[in-house]
């Protein structure tokens, strides 16, 4: 257990800290761009889908950052621990951080006299933001180019503004319209992208 914790904290200190600071800064300035008072369910969903959604990209896309340096990657491969375990630790860290961010935002809105179901919004936001982040994770994983991960996830977010009707259950911004049917398919898709990203990465880049 100590070994896993060591690996996790080493990743945060050496590679993840700028991304965490960015996420923190992004959360701090949210008051300039989103209102948290007197919101109804649709308006609260809008805050989560249009603003907080970006934290998924910030937290999940850079998880392969250390391996951008091929020497580090080769060194990791030569170690006794399987690489998937290493990646899993990072993913769990990102998932915990995402859950914290979502809980804080929803709690702030609740305290601002907003009327919505806490559990429903939490689950919907988590699955949607996790899905968006998993797109960046998957692309950066299989290409080993973090920039591509950001590019595709940002493009996916923007394209949903115009063409979400063609994306079915994988369309973003559905909570704003009062629909929560996407939660299960989107969560499954996010898990597939995460597992697929790890599995394909090692095969493609052998």
């Amino acid at each position, binding site marked *: 257990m100590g070994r896993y914790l060591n690996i996790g904290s080493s990743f945060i200190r050496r590679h993840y800290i700028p991304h965490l600071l960015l996420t923190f800064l992004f959360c701090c300035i949210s008051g300039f761009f989103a*209102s948290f008072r007197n919101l109804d369910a649709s308006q609260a969903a809008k805050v989560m889908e249009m603003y907080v959604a970006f934290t998924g990209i910030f937290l999940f896309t850079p998880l392969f950052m250390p391996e951008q340096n091929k020497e580090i990657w080769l060194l990791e491969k030569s170690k006794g621990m399987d690489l998937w375990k290493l990646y899993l630790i990072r993913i769990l860290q990102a998932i915990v951080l995402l859950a914290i961010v979502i809980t804080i935002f929803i709690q702030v809105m609740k305290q601002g006299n907003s009327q919505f179901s806490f559990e429903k919004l939490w689950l919907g936001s988590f699955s949607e933001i996790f899905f968006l982040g998993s797109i960046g994770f998957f692309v950066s994983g299989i290409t080993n180019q973090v920039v591509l991960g950001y590019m595709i996830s940002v493009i996916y977010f923007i394209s949903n503004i115009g063409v979400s009707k063609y994306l079915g259950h994988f369309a973003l911004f559905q909570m704003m319209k009062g629909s929560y049917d996407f939660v299960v398919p989107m969560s499954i898709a996010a898990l597939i992208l995460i597992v697929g990203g790890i599995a394909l990465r090692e095969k493609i880049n052998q």
Partner: protein
Amino acid sequence: MFQTLFLKESKQIVRSIVYYIYVVVFVMFLSSQLGSELTERMEKPEPGQESYGTINSKDESAIMEKYLGELVLETNHNSYATYPMGFIKRVTLNNTELDKIKSIVEVCTGKSWEKIIEDIENHFQKYNQSTMEGAIQAQVEFSIFPKESLSYKEFCNNMEQVCKIIGAGSSYNKEKLNLGVGVPMTYEQAVEEFEAVCKKDRITGTTARLFCDYAGIILSILPIFLGVTRCLRDKRAQVSQVVYAHRASAFQILGSRYLANVCMAFLPVVITAFVMQLPYQYHAKTIGVSPDILAFLKYTCIWLLPEIMIVLAVSFFITELTENVLAIFIQVFWAIISLFGSMSLKGNFGFGLIARWNALGDTNEFWKQKQEFFINRGFYFALSLVVFLLAIVIYEKKRKEGETIYGKIFKHRK
């Protein structure tokens, strides 16, 4: 030397997957926004038509009617658009604040809030709300008449009160009111507009403007990825030190990279603009107008090239300084602020990164604002050169002194 480096860089860009994504996303975005039905909106107006489109008006009574209509709709939904930091922020009020706004509306209109709600229902019943066009038309054509005794000064004072209740960046501030509102055009105005489109724009000019409006949105984001990818490539391939030791100067190395990126990013823009202009060239000939066949080139060079240049220059500068992907976050944020922060979809260019003219026509109005537009684009052209020079300074410093970590240059000299 410069030419060889430029060709090498161009070849590298063509081999990059980021570039292909750039081209595909750009073309798909533009083709989804610009359809061939535009030609139908470029016919000569006939007397007795149901509608001739809208024109901007600064008439005080038109401003009062339109803004009261907007305020009533926002109050009814309890959702107010504000722009505190240039980015849209929806504000929801509590019951006390909402009652204050309702009483201001009652003072301005001389009607009770219940009567106003009745008017809203009557108005929206006339339109087919199930279609997007119907819903938009109902929204656009909704206005509320102020009471006869209300002067424009009193109206402005009341709107100031509204701004205080809603908060910073409210849409009812004086600057926004002074921009005027869209009002239906008369037949004479429509004919005048059509003649301007034929004489000044020669048809293709107006379509090129609309092309640039849409292209400007996506080009505020896409080139960032090209710039960041290029700047990080040396680091990824671990050849930074080898390149630093090259006999070419920093200007030649970075200059050739920058120029190659600008050219390669601009190439699909020009080609797409040219291809998309062809049907309108044909349409112009069918209605007896000699088209401006170089409109696509003139508009893309003046409108879009400075934008590509500044986006790439900033991404070069930030990435050379930090040697990480920070430029993506900063610049996507900048682009989104510029897009949502623009007070109008047509003109009022100011110093916004994305110049908007989301209209087919309105030629006379564009000609009036042309100087402001040139200042905006000229500013970004000059700024891109300054920022690029700064990137060269950073690069040269790194070359002489060592590497940067989070923007701090670490000296490796003994």
